[in-house]
C-alpha cells in the first residue's frame, strides 16, 4: 500500500473515432494515455518536455504536443494519432509522399511530422514552401536534414492530401 494518497480520475476520450476510457492519475500525460491506456504506440515520446515534437497529435483537429497535455485535460475530446491516417494497409497520400521523398530514416520523429503536416494541409491545401518550413520547425529530425520532409509535404499538397480516414467520424 502506498502511503501517499493517490488521486485517480476517470477519463474518456475519442481516439481515431474509437472511445477509450480509463482511470488514471491526474499527472498522466495524454501521450502516456495514448500509448499505454489506449495501446496506440505509434505516437512516440522523445524529450517529454515539449521540445522535440515527436509526440504531436491532433486534439480537436489542432496540433498539440501530447507530452504537454494531461490526459484529464483531454476528457471528452477528439484525438487523432498516426494510427488513424492509413486506411487498413493502404497509406494515405501524405504517408506515401513521405516514403517516396525519403522523408524519414529511423522513423522516430515521423508520427509527429505526419500529424503536424496533416493539420497544416487541412487548414491550407496549398501551402507555400515557407509555410511548410514554419510548420515543421516545431519538430526535430536528426536523420533527414528536413529538406525531404518539406518535399514530401509539398508533394502531398500537390496531389491533394487524402484527409479522410476509415474510422474517423
Amino acid at each position, binding site marked *: 500500500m502506498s502511503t501517499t494518497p493517490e488521486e485517480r480520475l476517470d477519463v474518456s476520450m475519442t481516439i481515431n473515432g474509437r472511445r477509450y476510457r480509463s482511470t488514471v492519475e491526474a*499527472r498522466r500525460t495524454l501521450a502516456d494515455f495514448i500509448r499505454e491506456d489506449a495501446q496506440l504506440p505509434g505516437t512516440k515520446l522523445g524529450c517529454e*518536455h515539449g521540445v522535440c515534437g515527436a509526440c504531436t497529435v491532433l486534439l480537436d483537429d*489542432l*496540433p498539440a504536443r501530447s507530452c504537454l497535455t*494531461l490526459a484529464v485535460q483531454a476528457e471528452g475530446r477528439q484525438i487523432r494519432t498516426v494510427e488513424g491516417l492509413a486506411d487498413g494497409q493502404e497509406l494515405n497520400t501524405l504517408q506515401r509522399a513521405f516514403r517516396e521523398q525519403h522523408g524519414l530514416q529511423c522513423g522516430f520523429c515521423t508520427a509527429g511530422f505526419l500529424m503536424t503536416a496533416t493539420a497544416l494541409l487541412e487548414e491550407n491545401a496549398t501551402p507555400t514552401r515557407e509555410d511548410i518550413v514554419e510548420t515543421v*520547425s516545431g519538430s526535430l529530425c536528426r536523420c533527414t536534414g528536413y529538406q525531404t520532409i518539406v518535399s514530401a509535404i509539398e508533394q502531398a499538397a500537390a496531389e491533394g492530401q487524402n484527409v479522410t480516414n476509415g474510422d474517423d467520424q
Partner: protein
Amino acid sequence: MKPPKFRYVAPKTLDEAVEHLASDPDAKVLSGGQSLMPLLAMRLAAPSILVDLQHVPGLDGIDDQGSSVLIGAGVTHREIERSDVIAQRLPILSSAVVHIAHPQIRSRGTFGGSTAHADPSGEWPTVLLALGATMHAVGPRGRRTIEADNFFVGPFTSTLDEDEILTHVSVPTTRTAWSFQEAAVKRGDYGLALVAATGIPRDGQLSEARVAVGAAVGSVRRLTDVERLLSQGPVTDALAEEAAVTAAASIDPISDIHGNSEYRRKLVATLVRRAVLELKNGA
C-alpha cells in the same frame, strides 16, 4: 520526465476556481500548460493542486472596445495569430505572435498564461509593457486591475497574488507607431533579445514613447532613457543611433550558454536601432 503527483480540479465557474486556488498555498492555475507542463516534467515545480481553467466561462474573446481591445486570458496564441481584430487594431501582436514557439505550442498556449507566467523571454510581457496594457484579475478579495508597469516585477514574477487569476488584458490601440524586434538563433527558439517600442505619432514626432526589453535581461523592463530621447525631437537616423548607444549603456544583460552579456548588449543596441527606425516610419 514524468510530472510529480498533484491533485486536479476542473471548476465550472470563476468563483469556484478562485476558491480552489485560495484553498492551498501550493495550488496553481493550469491553462494551456505549455510553460507549466515542462516545469512539472523537469520537477522544477511541484504544485499540490492544479486548477484547470478550461471549463471556466468568460475567459475567451477578443473584444474591440474602440480605444482598447479586451483580450480574454484563455485566448490561445493561435487565435491571436488568426484574429482580424488583432491584425487591424493591434498589429504589433500579430507581428510578435509568430515568434512564440511553434504551431503545436501556439494552438494550446494562452495569452493570459504567458502573461501571468512573466517569463522575461516571453513575447507578451515585453509587448504588453511597451503598450502600457492593463491586467484584470480576480481573487478572494474581489476584482482589481494592475497596470503593466506595476505587473512585471522580476523573473517569472508578477504582482498577481498567489490566489488571484488573470482574467483579461486590456490593450490600448492608440499607440499606432510600433515595432517588435526579436533576435533568436532559429525560428521558434527562445529569443536572445526582444525589443518592443510604441508611441503616438503627432506632427511627424513621437509622443509618449514606450520602449521595453526582454530576454536579454533578467526581468522585462522599460528603457526610460531611450524613451526620453525619443520625445526630444523628430525621429532621425542619428537619433536611432543615439538610442542604440543609450540602450546598450542602460542595461545589465544576462550571460549564459546561449549568449554572453556583451553579445546580448550588442543585440539589444541593434534591435533598438531597428525599432526606432520602424517607429520613424509609423510617425
